[in-house]
């Protein structure tokens, strides 16, 4: 079944005519994703290798039945693109764009939440359901289809861990890079809930990093709400101090935001934490063999 993207996904790429949009849009299509439309204001009527381009997301949706949008536009235009996608009626958004201002994201998060639209990102690699659909920039060739759900705040680190899983012969249901910005559309808890409800997913790997308290919240959610086993990895054990959140931030979350604090919070809830990506993959393999 997988989560977020699958064979039912009908993708519109906002920014398809840009070089990144074209590269990844066509790559996603080559993987098998139904890339049905592109949007670039002023380029309506053109096409990108046969994919029709529209001036507005609304016209793309009404002409092609797109239900998912991938946003690959410059940071200064990303917020506008997200609002346009929401109002055009797509139900899932994958925002690849990096550098979206945090205050924009506060407003966007509230806006999305009120309308029940799921967004992954910004500043994220997207979502890949091996064998079904790839929306974003995840190199699909390193993953295979299987039962491990993978959710991560980091892009390339996700690939690394997915790669390690593949080396051990393990496949994935869906790989979700939620993005590492201070405010993202979907946080760990939201994606974990989707995995919990997904029949294909049997175990989950969560890849966190220093800063914020999303891993701590996820730990509580896993203990309280999840029946499926979760293995975690945290990056940033040797990060120098001062690169973590400031004082007031730590007060809010009741957490220091350090990798060690996150590891402790997870382990206190009985969640195993790998020390390296390699060990993390081995922990998953143990789970499956057990």
């Amino acid at each position, binding site marked *: 079944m997988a989560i977020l993207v699958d064979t039912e996904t009908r993708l519109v790429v906002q920014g398809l005519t840009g070089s990144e949009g074209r590269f990844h849009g066509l790559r996603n299509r080559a993987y098998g994703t139904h890339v049905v439309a592109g949007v670039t204001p002023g380029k309506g009527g053109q096409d990108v290798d046969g994919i029709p381009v529209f001036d507005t997301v609304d016209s793309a949706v009404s002409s092609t039945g797109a239900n998912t949008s991938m946003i690959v536009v410059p940071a200064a235009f990303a917020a506008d693109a997200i609002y346009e996608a929401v109002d055009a009626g797509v139900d899932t958004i994958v925002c690849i764009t990096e550098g979206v201002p*945090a205050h924009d994201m506060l407003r966007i998060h509230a806006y999305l939440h009120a309308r029940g639209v799921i967004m992954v990102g910004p500043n994220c690699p997207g979502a890949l359901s091996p064998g079904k659909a790839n929306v974003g920039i995840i190199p699909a060739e390193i993953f295979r289809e299987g039962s491990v759900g993978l959710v991560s705040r980091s892009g390339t*680190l996700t690939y690394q861990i997915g790669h390690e899983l593949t080396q051990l012969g393990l496949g994935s249901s869906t790989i979700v890079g939620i993005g590492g910005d201070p405010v993202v559309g979907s946080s760990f808890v939201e994606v974990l809930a989707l995995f919990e409800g997904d029949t294909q997913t049997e175990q989950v790997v969560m890849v966190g990093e220093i800063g914020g308290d999303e891993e701590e919240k996820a730990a509580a959610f896993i203990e309280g709400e999840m029946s499926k086993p979760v293995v975690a990895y945290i990056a940033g054990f040797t990060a120098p101090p001062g690169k973590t959140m400031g004082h007031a931030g730590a007060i809010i979350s009741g957490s220091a935001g350090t990798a060690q604090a996150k590891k402790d919070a997870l382990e206190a809830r009985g969640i195993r934490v790998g020390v390296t990506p390699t060990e993390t993959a081995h922990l998953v393999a143990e789970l499956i063999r057990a």
Partner: protein
Amino acid sequence: MDLYEFQGKELFRRYGIPVSEGRLATSPAEAHEAAQELGGPVVVKAQVLTGGRGKAGGIKLAETPEDVEARASEILGMDIRGHTVRKVWIERASDIAREYYLSITFDRGAKRPLLMFTTHGGVDIEEVAASSPDELVRLHVDPLEGYHPWQGRRLVYDAGIADPVEQKQIAAIVERLYEAFVGCEAMLCEINPLIVTTEGEVRALDSKFTVDDNALYRHPELAEMRDVAAADPLEALAREKGVTYVKLDGEVGVLGNGAGLTMSTVDVVTFVGGRPANFCDLGGGGDAQGVVDALDVITRDPQVRSIFFNIFGGITRCDEVARGILQALGQMAIKLPIVVRLDGTNAEEGRRLLEEAAAANLHAEATMLDGARRAVELAAAA
């Protein structure tokens, strides 16, 4: 981006938050002049982007211009937690009756700005949060709806401010601080202490102001506040070249793509017994020139004994990275051993390019763990 106290206070002033009059000085002579202009007793405050100035002796009271000059010459050049003091802020001394604390934080968890206020100011706010949590009043603002006057009132009433004149001043400052927070797209605006003078005037005596780097493109006046000189020269060079670089204290230069993978690489180098010399993230794109620039930065650190390239291609294409490495080798005559591990987008093409080049100091490794081990070995052997 963190702002200096004097920069934050300048923003406070623009948004109508009362601050004491002051002058910036970069030399004892300038400090003398500033004191003459201001008249009367002043405070000489080290301007550094770190806390603990007071304990480090970076804040001094002075009565006369001569006294100010002497204090400034003590403070200028001082090292506070690794930061050299290059500027002092000379400010009229205040008669302090009470010290409060006010801040607006970007609450990542709640995804809303958080107002915090307490009458326990002038001390570490973590202490207040730990010892008297009930006296730290917290209130979120809805980001779509924005600030409303009742929120400022609620802070002052719940914190137990009894004097109506003081209530009004503080509520007005909360409203303006929120305007500053939104107007500057801040991640943190903190006033500690927010003082009440013996005349009953409420004023910001310090400022911590952090703005969102991602939003600087629409705030050129804030972007200009960046103090390039204060940064580590290598970090400044890296920023100029669009590479994220943090100097660490070891021998293995680490270069990855993406913050998570690079952090993880630094961790793994440590776990296999090495000491990372730096954290260097090529970022999302990572074309050949980016690789050349990153190598340029890393190799300027004389402590570096080996370099570990850990690349997992997504948007970054491994063939581009390989071209960058080869270009850098050609341009810079790097002698250091370079361990390269490539996976992901166009990895095979990248590996082929490196293999064909057959450079003596290039070492290909298949996994991240093996790459880290090899780099640590080579650093030890160098």
